């Protein structure tokens, strides 16, 4: 039951902080929320270790019925297997650290109670997502994290940019949720259930492998269609190419939010979904190919943008986008273990990076532009040190965490031996180079070289308080340790025992095995490219600081293209947002008011007009009436005489 406690403690904290925040004050709300998280962070990892050590058995905790309509029954329940437990452990632990960090970071904010309530509510929704035992509860968590992300991005609601970003995040996510919901309907139609006990049973899935569904006048295997629909849902939540536009804007929220939601947890929900649905995805090879393709493209695409951004949070945001692409590559080539492994290590080092960026912003009096920083290493050495650790992990330098998980993905892409696998291999290797480059560009421009900050900001620059630094140290430790300590369990020889069937791969999927036996040059290549990226960053930003400016000037179109994020926002505005608003107005003014209302209004007008004319006949003069009657009589008699 400690497992259930881990999930519901944040909800209790959120309710106390949110509903009673006014009564118990900011301090009380913060205490309640953090206390709830501490309970979760003790119980969550504990439940995980119990499971992997064999002290507890995988099980399902049934909480109650949710929906019951004909054959469609769905329950509230908590699934307790390796995949769920590892996610619960990670989410509760990282979220707890971020809660603690927020005590310091948000200490000057007037509505802290609201902030902590949202943060805890978010954690609860995420925990419900990962412990779902059916797709609908997963969807509950899925939308719940969407709501909290909306609330937290728009936390500073008096800023128009924050409000716009919040709506954008919610609506873009909804665009992807619709195919997800339809995918759910299709799963129900195919399997007659959406409970994991049925749809994740490889035998049952195999029975449905031959079923087809016609669409666009063609026939497709039903499982492929399901795979595509679910992946589109995952693309939205995990900010993959074409649906990534909300993630960089989401940086409008407070920095701890970016760390928690837009790096460590929520955006990984899509990757989790792919891993969770592995028995279905394994039988949908074309959908998996698409997953690989989109993942690889995103990895490269986001990395190119990251290289030229100047906002410290935006660089890390694009880096998140790119790393999520890596995870999808792993899922796409059938190595779900590696994708979840990278998800876990990434959660530590990316939360670390965001929180250290927050510490930098805190130190620099809310300055986020790295062009106005530089030489901060002496002023905030602790932050500088942990940020180095985070970037070493991100770039995949051994023995930091990212090295193990990222290399495994690149090797798996190579070992897939398929066209799309080779494409993914190429993209991920180039992206690895760019990742190292932009990471050190960030480090060099922020912490090293000459300072470009104005002296007011420098005078106030100070190291963050311990309540912020301690979570950073804990995450830094995670960014170092989670790699070598767990590599064997997640993707090494112990993986089958570790996952214990929570991730299913088909018997003829040997990519993970082959990935361990790739040629040596493939193994070395990522490290080599990472070092090359760092070296290039050193040349451009330390050795010869004028070089980037010259390059930007001589390749201006390319530079602008990257700086403006491939013009995706402008494109979507032009082809989607503005036409829709225009059509909306047209439907209202022309469709409803002129045409549809025109009929009854016109009829009414006609009736009124006719009666106005008819009224004129009614003069009240007896003479006229008598005269008309006379004419009538004459006419009748005349008619009678004629026809007779």
């Amino acid at each position, binding site marked *: 039951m400690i497992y259930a406690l881990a999930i519901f403690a944040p909800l209790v904290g959120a309710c106390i902080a949110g509903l009673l925040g*006014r009564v118990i004050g900011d301090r009380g709300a913060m205490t309640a929320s953090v206390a709830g998280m501490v309970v979760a962070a003790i119980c969550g990892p504990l439940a995980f270790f119990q499971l992997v050590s064999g002290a507890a058995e995988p099980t399902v905790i049934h909480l*109650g*019925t*949710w*929906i*019951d*309509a*004909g*054959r*469609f029954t769905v329950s509230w329940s908590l699934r307790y297997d390796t995949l769920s437990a590892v996610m619960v452990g990670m989410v509760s632990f990282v979220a707890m650290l971020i809660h603690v960090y927020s005590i310091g970071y948000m200490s000057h904010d007037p509505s802290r109670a609201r902030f902590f309530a949202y943060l805890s509510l978010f954690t609860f929704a995420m925990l419900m997502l990962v412990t779902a035992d059916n797709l*609908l509860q997963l*969807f*509950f968590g*899925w*939308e*719940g994290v969407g*709501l909290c992300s*909306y*609330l937290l991005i*728009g936390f500073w*609601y*008096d800023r*128009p940019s924050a*409000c716009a970003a*919040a*709506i954008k995040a*919610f*609506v873009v996510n*909804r*665009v992807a*949720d*619709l*195919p997800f*919901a*339809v995918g*759910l*309907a*299709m799963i*129900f*139609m195919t399997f007659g259930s959406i409970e994991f006990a049925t749809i994740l049973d490889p035998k049952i899935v195999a029975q449905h492998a031959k079923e087809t*569904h016609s*669409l666009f006048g063609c026939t497709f295997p039903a499982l492929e269609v399901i795979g595509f629909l679910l992946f589109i849902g995952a693309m939205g939540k995990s900010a993959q190419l074409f649906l990534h536009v909300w993630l960089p804007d989401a940086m409008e929220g407070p920095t701890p939010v970016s760390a928690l939601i837009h790096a460590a947890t929520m955006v990984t929900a899509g990757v989790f979904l792919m891993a969770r649905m592995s028995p279905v995805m394994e039988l949908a090879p074309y959908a998996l190919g698409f997953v690989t393709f989109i993942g690889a493209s995103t990895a490269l695409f986001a990395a190119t943008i990251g290289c030229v951004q100047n906002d410290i949070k935006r660089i890390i945001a694009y880096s998140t986008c790119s790393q999520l692409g890596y995870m999808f590559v792993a899922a796409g080539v059938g190595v779900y273990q590696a994708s979840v492994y990278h998800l876990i290590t990434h959660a530590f080092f990316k939360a670390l990076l965001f929180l250290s960026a927050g510490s930098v912003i805190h130190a620099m009096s809310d300055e986020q532009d790295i062009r106005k920083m530089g030489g901060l290493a002496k002023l905030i050495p602790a932050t500088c040190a942990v940020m180095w650790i985070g970037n070493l992990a991100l770039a995949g330098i051994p023995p930091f965490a990212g090295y193990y998980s990222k290399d495994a993905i690149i090797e798996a892409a190579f070992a897939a031996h398929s066209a799309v696998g080779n494409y993914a291999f190429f993209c991920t290797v180039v992206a690895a180079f760019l990742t190292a480059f932009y990471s050190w560009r960030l480090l060099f421009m922020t912490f090293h070289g000459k300072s470009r900050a104005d002296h007011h900001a420098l005078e106030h620059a100070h190291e963050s308080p311990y309540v912020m630094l301690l979570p950073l140290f804990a995450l830094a430790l995670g960014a170092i340790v989670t790699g070598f300590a767990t590599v064997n369990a997640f993707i090494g020889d112990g993986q089958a025992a570790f996952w214990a069937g929570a991730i299913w791969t088909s018997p003829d999927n040997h990519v993970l095995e082959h990935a361990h036996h790739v040629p040596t040059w493939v193994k070395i290549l990522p490290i080599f490219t990472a070092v090359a990226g760092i070296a290039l960053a050193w040349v451009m930003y330390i050795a010869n600081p004028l070089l980037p400016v010259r390059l930007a000037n001589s390749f201006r179109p390319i530079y602008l293209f990257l700086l403006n994020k491939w013009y995706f926002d402008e494109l979507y505005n032009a082809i989607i947002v503005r036409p*829709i*608003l225009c*059509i*909306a*107005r047209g*439907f*209202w003014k022309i*469709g*409803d008011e002129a045409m*549809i*209302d025109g009929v*009854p209004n016109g009829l009414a007008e006609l009736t009124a007009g006719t009666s106005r004319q008819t009224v004129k006949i009614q003069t009240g003069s007896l003479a006229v009436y008598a005269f008309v009657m006379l004419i009538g009589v004459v006419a009748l008699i005349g008619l009678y005489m004629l026809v007779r």
Partner: protein
Amino acid sequence: MNAAGFPLLSLITWLPLVGGAVILSVRGDEETIASNARWTALWTTLIVLVLSLVLWVEFDPTDAGFQFVESVPWLSDYGLGYKMGVDGISVMFVLLSTALTPICILASWESIQTKVREYMLAFLILETMMIGTFCALDFVVFYMFFECVLIPMYLIIGIWGGPRRVYSAVKFFLYTLTGSVLMLLAILAMWMHAGTTDIPTLMATSFPPSMQTWLFLAFLASFAVKVPMWPVHTWLPDAHVEAPTAGSVILAGVLLKMGGYGFIRFSIPMLPEASAAFAPLMFTLSVVAVIYTSLVALAQEDMKKLIAYSSVAHMGIVTIGLFTFNEQGIQGALFQMVSHGIVSGALFLVVGVIYDRIHTREIARYGGLAERMPGYAFVFMLFTMASVGLPGTAGFVGEFLVILGAFKVSFWLALLGGAGMILGAAYMLYLYRRVVFGRITRDDLRAIMDLSPREWALFVPLIVLTMWMGIYPSSFSVFWEASVAAMVKHHQAAMESAVKLAGVIN
């Protein structure tokens, strides 16, 4: 008489009229009359609510047929009778009506200051007619209640409404009446054919296919206006905009449901073949309604109009669900109707709160309310999310079940019908942003007060219901499960026999 030997349904139906008589009998100065009228109306509706909860407790959900049946011969020579009864489908609507009316009375407590006695009287009459509509088991009795609903509503809009109230009231009346006249013809035709207007008998009667087509079209004319379906929906935004807050709540909460109720009570079980034949038309109109009116809602500048258009879109989901003829679709449609009754009613109350303070519904006039009204911002957000269909709130269950049912019919129906999910999020969040978020720029908004205890009393029951329906919907859907299952079975049997018949003829 029912099994308990006590005419419970008649009591619930007619009790509000007794309250109305009490109000009429009060003498004294204007202040006394007004205060008496308010309290009498509130107590009457609360007693009715408590009595209707007896239905909730005593109703046997395993029985698919009609319960609490009362039957008194009336014009027995013509096969007419005063017959009342509820099944799993109608009982929820009775409860919806009895739950929303006290809230409406309370919502009008301060905002209605002129002709209070007449206003309360109109509401009590309205309640009688609404409950009667859902309880009637004789088609003629149903028709009388169904039509009589128009009169008090017409008066509420036309007397206590906004500046263009007369135009809107007349438009509302004429639209609905025109449709109903055709329904009257259909009822006559059915009576000629079956010799009775008893609803359970008519459900078991099979009408010839050619007749079914005409009957279906006549019913469609009446119910489509009431729902309202595209393109006969334009009376609704006008009526909502001009109606007083409580009028809008009842209009959205209960009156729109009469259209959906009509389809599920008459069109689908009595005319199965025509319903199946016209289903593609219904789907088309519904999908157009969902997408078209959602887009129109996006462009609105008036809060009430925006929510009115969103109602049309949500009712589009209902009509999709009804005509899928499978359990998920129909249950989803029923759930969507009940949840929409509560959520959109609450949203109109939300608008009413700030209308009472600032006296404008123009969205651009507001902004930054979160700063001064945190409680209000919370309530508004909760109902916004319920309207958007966030899982865990009432709005999700119905919408999702309809998508599920629609998928059994066609992939595209599910996808296009579900498009409301995206557009709904867009227009509701855009509204919320413009009203609640941002900075306060106007002086009168700086002094605006948060929710009063009376207003909290309005919202708390609705919040509880919204969350309850979202987290544990089974306690509501259990009522209609047996009835819907029987209905689906009946429909399938009818379709099979129609196929067989066609085989014999060929």
